């Protein structure tokens, strides 16, 4: 029977509809917030949605988002995929990408996927871009946005090649809220090669020493000024440490550091004992996302520009009224002694 006009239109429409894959992973047997955020971004694109999940309890996780409107759910779970590891995660992601055969793949830019998905992209002949902060689609043309040169230059770009994998930054999209149900997830088989890497576990600082809190509303950034000679000509590093830790506890803040401060430790100089390179924000550090940021005793571009790109409200506390780095970058700069002000803040918060 000859193909009718309606059939042709239906076929053409089907041929032009994008297949969108939301590729997610579980964390502690459930989907992390970043996965729900990616789901929101994926649903915003005009196309057929497929959801793929890897990790422990992936099928249960699929049930938790059964009402998201996906055409189908694919999962990989099992002992080999419980912990993040390149060899197993890349193999699982490859199998899921092949099973989904999507045009556009959105995935969270978590450490697990940032490690494994570029390798999986290579295996399936896909292209991959990371740290995506915005995605738009119109008539099948997808455009993405990300920063280059460490948050200095912003670019909007696209690729014609498919599949195209986009790792989406956290905190950009609202988490998806939907109903649970039965997803009838399809388990995808994974072929694993030799595994030479054994995961020993997660090494976390002691609960009272945990100073990096990605979900905190406030980021407190300490600069090297805390470790310099103070007004009385003496060093007060111990006092600086207790003031900063007091603030972190009472304000439930996350701790960032300038490069010069964390470098003191590797150079063998006395510094704040709880500070490590993990706290560093800026050029060779992180670029955390928090609503508010208070920088103290900082002088330099890293805390004020690069590391603070995603801090919405910024205030600084230092002794230099002419600090060129703070001017134009912070909303308010207080010219005062940080030791005195933070002690007073802690008293008021307590």
């Amino acid at each position: 029977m000859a193909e009718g006009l309606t059939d042709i239109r239906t076929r053409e429409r089907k041929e032009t509809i994008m297949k969108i894959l939301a590729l997610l992973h579980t964390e502690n047997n459930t989907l992390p917030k970043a996965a729900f955020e990616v789901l929101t971004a994926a649903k915003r694109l005009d196309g057929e949605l497929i959801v793929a999940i890897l990790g422990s309890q992936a099928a249960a996780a699929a049930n938790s988002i059964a009402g998201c409107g996906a055409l189908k759910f694919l999962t990989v779970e099992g002992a080999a995929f419980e912990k993040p590891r390149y060899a197993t995660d890349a193999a699982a992601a490859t199998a899921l990408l092949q099973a989904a055969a999507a045009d556009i793949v959105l995935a969270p830019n978590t450490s697990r996927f940032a490690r494994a998905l570029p390798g999986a992209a290579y295996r399936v002949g896909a292209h991959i871009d990371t740290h995506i902060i915005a995605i738009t689609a119109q008539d099948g043309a997808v455009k993405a946005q990300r920063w280059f040169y460490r948050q200095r230059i912003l670019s909007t770009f696209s690729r014609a090649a498919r599949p195209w994998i986009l790792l989406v930054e956290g905190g950009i999209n609202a988490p998806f809220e939907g109903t649970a149900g039965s997803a009838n997830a399809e388990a995808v088989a994974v072929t694993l090669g030799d595994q030479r890497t054994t995961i020993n576990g997660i090494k976390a600082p002691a609960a009272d020493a945990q100073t990096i809190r990605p979900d905190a509303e406030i980021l407190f950034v300490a600069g090297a000024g805390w470790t310099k000679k103070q007004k009385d000509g003496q060093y007060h590093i111990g006092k600086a440490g207790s003031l900063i830790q007091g603030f972190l506890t009472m304000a439930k803040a996350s701790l960032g550091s300038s490069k010069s401060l964390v470098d003191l430790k590797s150079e063998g100089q006395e510094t704040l004992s709880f500070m490590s390179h993990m706290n560093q924000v800026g050029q060779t550090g992180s670029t955390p996302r928090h609503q508010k940021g208070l920088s103290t005793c900082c002088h330099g571009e890293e805390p004020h520009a690069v590391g603070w790109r995603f801090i919405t409200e910024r205030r600084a506390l230092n002794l230099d009224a002419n600090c060129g780095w703070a001017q134009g970058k912070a909303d308010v700069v207080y010219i005062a002694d940080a030791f005195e002000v933070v002690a007073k803040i802690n008293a008021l918060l307590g």
Partner: protein
Amino acid sequence: MSTGFQIVVCGSLVPDPLQTLEPVTTPQGPGLKNETMLPSVLDPWSAHALFEAAHLAKQVAGSKVWLVSLGPKAKLQQLMMTVAQKVPFELVAVDGSASGFTDAHLVAAALADAILALPGLDKSKLLVFGGCASASRDASVTMQLVCERLGISEFFAGVDEITVAADGSFRVLERIEGGQYLDSTCASAPAVLAWATGNLPEPPNNPQIGMLNMRGVMPALQKAKPAAIGVGGLAYEKVEIPAQKRATRIVKDASTDDIAKEIVEWLKA
């Protein structure tokens, strides 16, 4: 371990972080204003990888370090004047663009080709180091693509520590979310490690190491193979520096009490 590692560090140049960067359009795609004139440094995370490589080579007898660097030859030569004084290595130069706007897939192909062409390469001893991201493209993708192109199955991202055991196995600490580390053990080389900052300070300049390295640097630069590195399949629609200037309010001559009170009100708002 008696035979040592072959440690290949991938690292190139980026504009000095203190330089003001201004994007421009070139026939090859986006670029930076006066890009050829901008002072450069070794990419910071790659630099950490290089220092860790040299440290590891010192600990494991029989190890050797190569630095595979993709960038414009003339700029690489300038860069080597400082980098070569830090730690001992043999340079392998690849002549091509070091722009952050180039496609990581093309860069990875050029780096992998250069590694595979190393004389005497023994994959069973191979550790490939690099930065966990560059300060230019900042994609955290290139090293995984190099890993795949080399046919290596073990990859570690955001590495801060490697500890080698007597049997050649090594323990790796990788940065993950929330200030935590993923702690794993790899039974043997080959592996690819994309470094975060590690734990070592920048080594002081050592003119003797510099002289030793420079003997190999000039011939390496002369032998540098050209690589056609461009934007590849990327179509840039807009490249800009968004206006970020804030109207900063400077609070001078206020009492400690008033400042603290204002900050607390802001924190609680």
